[in-house]
């Protein structure tokens, strides 16, 4: 089982990221379990969300203190919280940032904000980062990521949903291009 921790700011879709990711895993025949951090969610305040993906039913629950993969949706968070806290040996970090933030672990940076701004017209990066996550980790296929997003974002308007699907692909391709 892999433990994934997502950092974002309230209102940026960190929790939705975790739900989309874990729902996606189920389309690949895996088991996923996602949850929000048991925190008081305020718009703009740092929040955490957790995902667990495994080959059998996920038994463990609650906060993840020793993640295998960390995803950071907002570059300003690295100075507000220790996003690298407890990362397991060989753990990976995927950060939305146009520049290298000097994190200690194996880190992939991508400017998801610009991509999101271009496609979604808002700096909400969770779908771009979801695509990037798929490309970096190979944990979930692009096809399944799209299915997972369609499931979780079912309440979105057709147009908004399609733009988010486009954002997933753009994030995926951005990483693949290197």
């Amino acid at each position: 089982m892999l433990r994934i921790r997502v950092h974002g700011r309230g209102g940026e879709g960190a929790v939705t990221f975790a739900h989309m990711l874990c729902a996606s895993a189920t389309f690949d025949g895996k088991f996923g379990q996602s949850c929000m951090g048991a925190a008081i969610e305020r718009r703009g305040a740092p929040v955490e969300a957790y995902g667990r993906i495994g080959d059998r039913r996920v038994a463990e629950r609650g906060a993840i203190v020793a993640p295998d993969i960390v995803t950071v949706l907002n570059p300003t968070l690295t100075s507000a919280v220790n996003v690298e806290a407890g990362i397991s040996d060989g753990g990976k970090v995927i950060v939305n940032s146009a520049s290298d933030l000097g994190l200690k672990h194996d880190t992939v940076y991508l400017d998801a904000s610009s991509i999101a701004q271009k496609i979604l017209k808002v700096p909400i990066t969770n779908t771009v980062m979801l695509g990037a996550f798929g490309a970096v980790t190979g944990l979930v296929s692009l096809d399944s990521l799209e299915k997972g997003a369609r499931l979780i974002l079912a309440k979105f308007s057709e147009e908004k949903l399609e733009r988010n699907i486009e954002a997933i692909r753009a994030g995926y391709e951005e990483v693949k291009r290197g």
Partner: protein
Amino acid sequence: MKMFLSGNQCIAQGAKLSRVEVVAAYPITPATPASEDLHEMVGRGELDAEVVNTESELGAMGVCVGAAAAGCRTFSCTCSQGLALMREMLWAASGMALPVVLAIDSREIGIPQGLLSDYSDCLSERDASILQFMCEDGQEIIDSLIMAYRIGEHEKVLLPSFVVSEGHRVSHSFETVDVPEQEDVDKFLPKYQPKHVFVDPDYPMSMGTGVMPQYPSFKMQQYRAMQDAKTVIKEVCDEFADAFGRRYGLVEAYRTEDAEMVMVGMGSVVSILREKVDEYREKGLKVGMLKLRVFRPFPEEEVREALSGAKKVLVFDRACSPGNEYGISCIEIRSALRRSQALISNIMISGRDVSSEDVDALYDKWAEADDEYVEWFKADFDPRAVSMCGFDNFEKLVKGETVERDVVQEGEACLSKGIMSCSGCVSLGAIRMVLDVFGKKAIVVNNAGCLSAVGAFYPMTGWNVPFYFFSYSNAGAAASGIEVAMKRKGIDGDLILVAGDGAIFDIGLQTYSAALERGHRIICLCYDNEGYMNTGVQCSGSTPHGARTKTTLEGRRGRAKNMEQIVAAHGDVYIATASVAYPDDLLKKVRKAKSFDKPSFLHVICPCPPGWEYDPALGIEIARLGVESGATPLYEYEDGKVTLTKVPKVKKPLAEYLRKQGRFSHLTDDDIAEMQAEVDRKLERLTAGNL
């Protein structure tokens, strides 16, 4: 059908599939989303039920009991303080033989207020003759809800049920579950047609009456119903397994047959324990696991049987019973095993998450121990945790040592900068503005709401003046107590009750009314964001007509309470409405309230970006539009007369105010014309000097 659902969504699915007829809803974290889902299901026409938004959990349980006593299948969900507030009516439900089902998103019970999950809330109701089903995951929530109605409605049982799962840990976890088909559930759970409770003028019944010497006989009846419930539960579980392929029972004994060491648990921790048993078995260790699925009635026989061969037992407890050495489920296990030679140890996990690695560490110690022990799991991580009342220096203060503290100086803020409210929070601006008039003399009392969630949270506090947090329902009473004590001890200060609309209009109205009636000098600052915004935007007594919230999806029908009229009915109270868009006016009113030796009620309407759905930068503009359009007029009420303090030179149309807010976006021009007429009528009344 396989679906990817959260625990709360499973609660809603379970209630829907059970075709509940009456749902009572009152928001409380983390159970609120389940009620919101039920509102949506009714809105989409998937569920034919009456959903009643109540003023408190006591009211929610009251609605359930009333509707059940009139013959309906009823449902509500809550946790923690909410369940504690329901208490009286819980006992009414069991006493009146009403099979109400409550889903409990179990949460730590305050004080201190916790947001994690332990079982203090539900297990405190151990003796209320309520069946308690302790669920491991979302699947078990759905299945248990359906079965709870079958069991509770059985003629030999007729008792209410709790279907318990852990708040956040399960309620907010999404995973794949198999949602049964409605037609299969309909076959398993027939329509509820109670023979013992109904409303019929041709057969009048007197229900809920008093008894004198017969009380023990009634209690014995409940006691027997609980005993009989064990058999009924087993029968219903068998039937459920035949119908849906999932087998449950009173307990689940996992690889206990030849086990020398058995771990015992309830709820989600069981999933981990089951996995660990497999792991240990592969190493040749004779370990098993016992899941207590039903806590009430307690399955003594099944426990005894499953643990008959165990030399060592380790009980994982999510709730303790201070005064007894053991956790609550361990007390029951020890009672069941009273003739056994097994060594029974106990781990208090309370609200903590337990990982696979944690169980390894606990197992190692347990395997080595040659005697019983009781241990708290990860409870002493922070030495400051012992200081509770004022966070710091608790021990020094108890010993009577002098402790230096920074206090507010002239011109400094009562509430520090940098606390975590939402971006663009108008309420916080209003609170700061009001309190800074009092400075060091302010003594702040606050009830559950946005402010309590952001102003102070261990180990941090933003308060530079004395600050008290009390439960939601206690807006007026605890503050009255402080006022009385201050007088008695000759403490010079201004007691300010800072409470949201939920606390004043709804759940705390009773205690606030009593405080006004007694005439305590309490300055009440009601920061009114017109809904339960802290729990994620639900309808309150202050939500205006037409506004959409998550519990009024089509827009609220009916008008908000006129709180000023209610307060005025209590006699000599200084009443003023104010707005952050007019700080001079607001401050003048606060200074006036400060000068009085009587109660004051300052009602400040505070736009809320997430709740009212607008760009966070526009808060002050919207507040100003509220005044300019007459939607939130500014006035004072003294000596039985209203004086408008800000009359806009040109009154703006109400539409301009409403159209800036997403919560009114569904309104038609006709709707708005109607609301405009109401606003005009109110302004006319106020202009004539009447509330």
